[in-house]
Each structure stands twice: as C-alpha cells, then as structure tokens.
C-alpha cells in the first residue's frame, strides 16, 4: 500500500514537536521528543507498552490537560503555531486535531446525534439540511452509510464493535478536522473489522493527516508511510515505514521489530 510517489516528494510538515518532555507527577514519561508529522500521510507510532506513544499522541491535541498532575515542556506546533501558545484555544485545537480512542466510545445517543454532536457544538451547519448533509457525508467517508442509513435513529451503543469504531471515526470527521489521532483504534476489534478500518485509514489520508498508535507491527507496515519507534519515553528512530522495517538504523529498533522484546 505504500505508494512510492508519497515517499519521494518531501511533504509539508503539519505538526512538529521539539524537545517535548512530560511528567506524570514527578515521574517522567516523555524525555524530549523531536518528531515531524507530514501532511496527508499516515504516521505510525510503535513501541512496547508503556513506552509513551499514547502519551505523546495525547500531547498533540492537549488531551493531556484532562489528566491531573501532568506537566509538559518543549513545543508542539500545528502549522507552525505552538498549540500551547496563549493564542491557541484548546477547544479550537481539538476541533482541528480530532481523536479516535482505543475503545469505541459512542455516546449513548442515536447514530445521527452521535455524528451531529460535533457540528452542533461548533456551529458547522446553518440549518437542518446542512446538518443532514454533514452526517451523511461523514458516514459515507467512514464507509458506514450503507449499513446505517436506515437506522440513523437507533442507539449507537447497540451496534457491533467494528461499527461503533467506524462511527467514532465518522464522528471525528464530521467536525472537519485537519489531523486525526488514532490510539490503537483496532485493538478491541476482530480481524474483519480491523481490515475495514485499515482500508478506511488509507482512504482518509488524502484529506487528513493521520497519526496512529499501534502495538501491531504488521498494521503499522500496512497503513503507514512514516513510522516512529518509541522506547521508555524516548523516540529511538523515525523513518519512512519501508526504510524502518527493512533496514532499521538502530539495533534496538531491529530487536523490537524482529520480536526479541516488546
């Protein structure tokens, strides 16, 4: 799936972190991460559990703000503006940088209301027609329209796990984000649902910049163009996915991708 054209052109950097450090209380979880996230690419973050990849992901849309006792240092930029700058509002940031969580978490509302939630709070639709359009196009983009078009009024919590997760993706698309962060989106799903979501991720790349955390190396290889390897809060190596998997520069990366630890 890796298209050679993508790796040849040097794409614009959408998000960038410099010397990003993070502490939970007095326990350091990130030790100075420098990473560029290229626009319209899928960047995969891999590494053993507890290595800080999910924490790093949450720094990108400041979901870390919701955790008590977290302190950060360094910079995170979106289109070259520091997201922690006073001029950047966290609500606006999260509208631009959406997130899909590990466990599907639809609201206990109808399918329609789940998708319409974001556009409603951000005022993206002037009237009901526009809202209907956003809901439909988001569901189509998430490949869910065929399955749920007749059941928009049903409770979203009654759907299957794979459907719920695609609903969550549709829900974040509906807000018209620029970046979508995905935190192990397939870890709670069966292989067939996983395959559908991987296809979807590849589709979405044309419109959005995607950062995905995964513990599944094959998945990283299948869906991403860039891969970053984290270990114990450090970024060990980052490269194009093909390069990183075929000829890792660091011996630790090699040990990990060949299954010697992790």
């Amino acid at each position, binding site marked *: 799936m890796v298209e050679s054209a993508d790796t040849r052109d040097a794409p614009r950097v959408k998000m960038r972190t410099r010397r990003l450090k993070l502490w939970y209380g007095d326990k350091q979880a990130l030790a100075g991460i420098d990473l560029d996230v290229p626009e319209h690419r899928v960047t995969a973050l891999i590494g053993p559990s507890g290595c800080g990849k999910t924490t790093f992901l949450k720094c990108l849309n400041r979901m870390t703000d919701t955790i008590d006792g977290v302190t950060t240092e360094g910079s995170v930029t979106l289109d070259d503006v520091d997201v922690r700058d006073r001029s950047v509002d966290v*609500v606006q940031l999260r*509208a631009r940088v959406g997130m899909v969580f590990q466990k599907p978490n639809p609201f206990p509302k109808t399918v329609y209301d789940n998708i319409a939630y974001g556009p409603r*709070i*951000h005022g*993206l639709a002037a009237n009901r027609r*526009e809202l209907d359009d956003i809901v439909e196009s988001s569901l189509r983009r998430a490949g869910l329209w065929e399955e749920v078009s007749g059941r928009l009024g049903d409770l979203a919590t009654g759907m299957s796990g794979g459907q719920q997760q695609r609903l969550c993706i549709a829900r974040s698309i509906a807000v018209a984000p620029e970046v979508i962060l995905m935190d192990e989106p397939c870890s709670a799903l069966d292989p067939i649902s996983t395959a559908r979501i991987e296809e979807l991720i590849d589709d979405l790349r044309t419109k959005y910049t995607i950062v995905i955390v995964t513990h599944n190396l094959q998945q990283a290889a299948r869906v991403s163009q860039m891969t970053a390897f984290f270990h114990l809060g450090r970024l060990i190596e980052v490269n194009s996915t093909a390069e990183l998997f075929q000829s890792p520069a660091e011996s630790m990366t090699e040990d990990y991708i060949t299954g010697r630890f992790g």
Partner: protein
Amino acid sequence: MTDMTQPATSVHQSDTSRERLRRRYGRERSFKIISVSALGLTALFLVILLGSIVLNGWSGFLTTKLRLEVTYSTKHLDVEDPANGNFRMIILDALRERFPDVTERRELRALLGIVSNRGTWDVRDALLDDPSLAGGSLELWLPAATEVDMLNKGYVDRSAPEELRLIDDRTIAWVDAIDEADDLATVFNWTFLLSGDSREPELAGVGGAVLGSFWILLVTFVVSFPTGVGAAIFLEEFAPKRRWVDVIEVNINNLAAVPSIVFGLLGLAVFLNVMHMPRSAPVVGGLTLALMTLPTIIIATRAALKGIPPSIKDAALAIGASPVQVVSHHLLPLAMPRILTGAIIGMARALGESAPLLMVGMVAFVVDLPSGPTDAATALPVQVFLWADSPERGFVEKTSAAIMVLLVFLVAMNGLAVYLRQRFEIRW
C-alpha cells in the same frame, strides 16, 4: 454541503467560529459559576442553620443567680423536722430586708417572684447540710426566675412599652438594684445539663432526655447489632442463591427507605397494642428504632463482607476450616471495623430520630431521670420537639441549647466512625 477538501484555513479559524467560541466560553464560565453558587448556597444554608442555633442557644448554658443573706429564723422552721419549714417565707424575709419599702401583699408576691421556685429547695438543702444554721443566717446564691434570667441575658427590650414586656418596670428596678450591689451573677447552668424536664425554663434540663436517649440507644444497639450482623452473615455467606433470598434482599433495600414514621406505627401497633409494653418506655422506643436501624446495619455488614477478597476465604477453606470457622475466625474480624463504622452511623441516625418515638408515646413530660429501660423517659430530639412548642421565651434558648447538646453527641459518634474507618480499615 460546505467544501471539505482542505480549506485554506480551517473552518475552525474563521471569524464566525471565533465569535462562537467566545460565546461558548461565556456559557462555560456561567455554568461553572452557577454550579459553584449552588454549592455555596448549600454552605450558606448550613452556616445560617448552625449560626442561628448557636446564637440562640449559647446562653442556655448560662443561668442567673442572685445573692441573698437568708436568716433561718426559728418562727418559720419546724423544730422536729428541719426538712419541713416555710422556706418561702425565709426567702421573702431576706428580700424584704433588702427592699424595706415594699410592703403591699401583691408587691411582696411579685418580689418573691424574682427568685426561682427552686430557691426554696436550695435554702432547705443548706439547712439539711448544716442543721446548726437554725436561728443563724447564711449568704446563698439562689437561682433567679426565668424573667430575671431573660432580663439579665439582655433578651428583654427595656425600651418597649411595659405592657408588652414579660417583666414590669418595678421588677426591673429591683433586679437593677441587686445587680448594682454586685449580687447578680451569670454562672454556668449545671441544672441544664443534669436535671430532667420542668415547666420552669430556668429549671429545665436535658439530663433526663440524654439518659433516655442512652437507654433507647442501648436497647437499639443490643437488639439491632447482633441481629443485623447475623442476618448479613447469613445472606452473604450461607444463604443458598435462591429466589427467596433475592426477595429478602430487595426487601431489606426497600425497608431502608421506608419513612421512619411508619416504623413508629409498627411499634405502636405491635409493641404497645399487641404486646402491651409500657408506653413512654425506652425499651419500646429502642425496639422501634432497632427495626429501623436493622437494614442499615445489614447493608453495611454485607458491604464489609463483600469487601474482603475471596482469596482469604479460599485460603482458610483450603486448610480445612469449616465455613462457620472461616466466618468467625477470618471474615468477621477483618470486616469488623467497617461493620462498626456502619453501626455507629446507624446509631447516630437513631439518636437523631424523633418521629417514631412520638408514635410510641415518648412525648411524655418526664421530670425524673430514667434509671432503666422501662422507666418513663423521653429522648433528646423529642425534648427539643417538646420545648420548641413551649411559648415561653426562656425555652427558645433551652431548645437551641438542647440541639447543641444533641449535635455534640452526633459529631462525637460520627467522629468515632471516621476514626475507626481511618485507623483500622484495611485497603485490599
């Protein structure tokens, strides 16, 4: 549909979006302010409630006494029996000596009225302590009547027209004269803490009610604690998982939410009408409250037993202990702090409860201190209820003071529960 293919700047950075964001943050702020004010309002309620009780009640712990030089003139005494004398006349003589210009009968009676009825007993008791006083004289601090007490504590508006005051100008003049001679004192009101009820505010005390509450709680505890713990052990550890056990369970949860007055009706119908137990006796009140407290204790005990990890039970069973031994040697001792905590909280609730006690006749006017669970008695909260109904100004401060005593007991019990929880609770 709006163009979603990568706008030059995101829709979220447009001016309308910014304007909207400003309003959203406005709502956020107001919502937070409203929530905090709700809590603040609650705090304000609490402050006003406790504040008004303390402001009204602190003076209930004080009482006014006046110093009199009493002469045990033999003409008022019975030579045979020192306890039998006209001690009112002795006090009156002492007052007359101080205010020689008062001669008219009605005036004299009013003058005698500034000393509480209790004063005659104090005069008598002094003589009984020292019979050699007969014929001699003694300086005594006698309790003032409630009107004088109120005047001394500043509850009487001197500027109000005389007919609207409960104390007339003449009496105020007498009291002021006594006060100027430094013979008026405000002292701690031991009577209030130690005696039973009285029709006279200055003689009324919570002692009887405290003892009554003690006997009630003793009965409540003795009945409900073993029963509740036993029932909980059975339901949690030995009951077969059958339908009727679910019925008991649902039943207990519902019982915990039944209004307390309904338990009073039950106590009235069963303990008084069917079993003919004595009315107004702590044993009946205690049994009624025991039924009310039982669900609380059962629920607390079950929660405590549930909180013990199954591994402990498995380990004990694996070394050959019988299920009864597992419970008595392992589960019960481990669960005991939480059980006791729950039981104390249940007892505190029972201490504050009055409605069921009204139903079983514990609203009697009881002067004597109850010496056992079958003596007529009243309870502290019921005493508050009774005094709250009294029209005399003197009972307002007594009511508030009795509430303060009640609250002190409640705070102590809850404090003990918190202490037990923190000191002994094991976190798994």
